[in-house]
């Protein structure tokens, strides 16, 4: 008799549209070594039938690179927000429960709308102001390699939203901007040219919903898949903001 194939059991929270009621469906996918959650969702696409043999539609989610660099496939897996591509089945307890990261509006199933994070980058002026992309016949300033290493660490932020989902202060009842843009403010303020607009950025996070709304729960640093030391940088930023606030007071 043929050996029964090892199966992986999924319980997936689904939702047909932004205003629809969530429901769950269960699926079974053949186990194979190194299987990850995205690969399993791809298997469901090939045969969208539930565990009970009911024909359904493929699960909707977002993914691109499958290497944990693009940040697209963020979802909540067994209660922990993370990238689905690097969530290996071998490391997960079964049944594997998938749910959308509900800090963000749900578009459909596991697919979420993270526009707010890109809007945050506008608010904090998340760029270095250059005169233009043309030649200026002048090299950019040298940088202390140690500062550059810190900047590199932060610049790996892939706007995935794990820190936002994990933060208890980012929610529909609060206007807190969240850890992601705060980390970026520190990044641009570290750059020798970016520093010229430090004041504008600090003022942007001094306003309502800014850094003062951080409750220091330390969840963000644990959730960050790139291990960016968010709380360390937010603490530094807090000092910078306080200094800036004093300056603003005296310059009035």
């Amino acid at each position, binding site marked *: 008799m043929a050996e029964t194939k090892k199966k992986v059991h999924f319980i997936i929270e689904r939702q047909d549209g932004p205003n629809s009621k969530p429901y769950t469906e269960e699926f079974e996918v053949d186990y194979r070594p190194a299987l990850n959650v995205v690969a399993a969702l791809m298997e469901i696409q090939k045969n969208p039938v539930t565990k009970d043999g009911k024909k359904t539609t493929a699960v909707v989610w977002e993914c691109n690179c499958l290497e944990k660099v693009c940040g697209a496939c963020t979802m909540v897996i067994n209660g922990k927000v993370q990238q689905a591509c690097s969530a290996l089945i071998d490391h997960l307890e079964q049944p594997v429960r998938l749910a959308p990261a509900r800090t963000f509006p749900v578009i459909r199933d596991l697919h979420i709308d993270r526009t707010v994070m890109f809007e945050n980058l506008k608010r904090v002026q998340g*760029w270095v102001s250059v005169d233009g*992309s*043309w030649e*200026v016949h002048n090299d950019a300033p040298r940088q202390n390699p140690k500062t550059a290493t810190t*900047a590199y660490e932060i610049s790996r932020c892939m706007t995935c939203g794990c820190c936002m989902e994990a933060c208890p202060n980012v929610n529909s009842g609060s206007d807190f901007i969240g850890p992601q843009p705060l980390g970026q403010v520190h990044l641009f303020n570290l750059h020798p040219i970016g520093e010229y607009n430090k004041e504008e950025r600090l003022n942007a996070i001094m306003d309502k919903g800014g850094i003062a709304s951080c409750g220091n729960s330390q969840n963000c640093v644990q959730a960050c898949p790139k291990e960016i030391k968010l709380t360390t940088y937010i603490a530094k930023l807090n000092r910078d903001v306080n200094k800036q606030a004093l300056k603003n007071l005296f310059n009035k």
Partner: protein
Amino acid sequence: MKKKIIVVGGGLSGLMATLKICEAGGEVDLFSYCPVKRSHSLCAQGGMNACMDTKGENDSVYEHFDDTVYGGDFLADQNAIKGMCEAAPKLIKMFDRMGVTFTRTPEGLLDLRNFGGQKNKRTLFSGSTTGQQLLYALDEQVRAWEVKGAVKKYEFWEFIKIIKNKENVCRGIVAQSMNSMEIKAFRADTVILATGGPGMVFGRCTASTICNGSAVSAVYQQGAHIGNPEFIQIHPTAIPGSDKNRLMSEACRGEGGRVWVYKDGKPWYFLEEMYPAYGNLVPRDVASRAIYDVCMNQRLGINGENRVYLDLSHIPADYLERKLGGILEIYTEFVGDDPRKVPMQIYPSVHYSMGGIWVDIKHNTNIPGLMASGECDYQYHGANRLGANSLLSAAYSGTVSGPEAMRWAKVGEKGSELTDEELQKAENECRAEYQAILKMDGPENAHQLHHELGDLMNKYVTIERVNKDLDYCFDEVKKILERWNNIGVDDKSDWANQEGMFVRQLRNMIIYALVVTKAARMRDESRGAHYKREFPTRDDERFMKTTIAEFDPATQEPKISYIDFDYSLVKPRARNYAVAKKG
């Protein structure tokens, strides 16, 4: 009135073009089917080439130019390459000003590393996530222009096709919202496609799932010519996987990594033995063929499987962390072993398309008003691309296509603007096609069919190509095209319907697979990434020409012809990496 340019694709090339257009006073409608910050450019790891000559090696722009021409086996436009290599150091300085976190030397200057097919240190890098950092820099600059109102982003919108006016000039596009499923036509003065490579035509490869070549195939079916489609780069070092092959950067070898297998019980560093002058840093086509030969013909792969070792374990861990941290993380995360301690196991994988939409030196396609830029064009890499030249060509092509799009918008013979009726007609056609897809109720599953397409293409149109196999493959792909009509669509929803869109993309992928296969069948020689045992040498007499594929609507097949290109700067010479290059 401000000039309106549509840019499709927000990777490195599309964003660079967008910036240039904004700076020239134009307005951009930027279409992308993901947030542009998640574009595939961010998967580029190892670096970007530019002659900075800061390592005491007397590097020169000419040497970069010649390495690129030679590495491409003399099949790329030499004046285009010259322009790119000359611009490279200036582009690096621009990125540096924009805040790219390049890895630095102890004295705070930009560091350089070795890369394949080049003897001098010429590769600028940001750890091992260089593409991510470059993409982010341009993403940030474009966001600043978005705030100023010069850029309007259409993210999660899929390009469907271009619209031509009655003079046959491209004057707009039709696109579909991937959430509301709305299909809408847009006017433009110029359209730039910067939609990346066709990796998904091969199923499992190093590309992102979004790299399906669908947009390229769509404009090909509307009359755009494809150049050199048979030249598909196989990267020698990827982690084989069932969902995707994950890239292990050439930077591993650039930083001292060695490739080996056991032979007679002892490690055999076969690249170093076969190619003493370049060793592990031979170009990708050469390395991939060697690994293929060792595994398939000599049967020396690890445990008899198609794997060889890529070994970094002799290099100090802190050095590795600084130079390669990001990709070592990928290996540890997805394989479970620590490459700092044990050799990695890798195998070649489809990685990049040298071929793409044919363009002139200013990135105009053969359809007036339509331009192509980045991996989706065919311009800079000939028969084989050198590592770290892709970030360069992506960024550089945007600096050419952007200003040219503005020039065309101002003084080109654009003919008449699209009328409301013409826009309506284009929308209606696309709606009808899409509605027909939603009604499909056959027995085939689109994703299963895609899997079969990938298996075929991987088996027959990669490292070694055999004419009778290519004939077989072509017939099989045609059968898949037939079977496409028998797909059943389960998801009938009018909201975020990924299945409906995938079915449309799949047909475009199948059509493009025919182009690659046919062009490979017709080129009876071996050059760069295109290798046939039956025709083991390069045949400049017959094939030092650009392949042109033209769509034949009657048969849905490509018509292949050959045209001359500009090789006026260096005379072709035989390519041999066993010895030092003679320039």
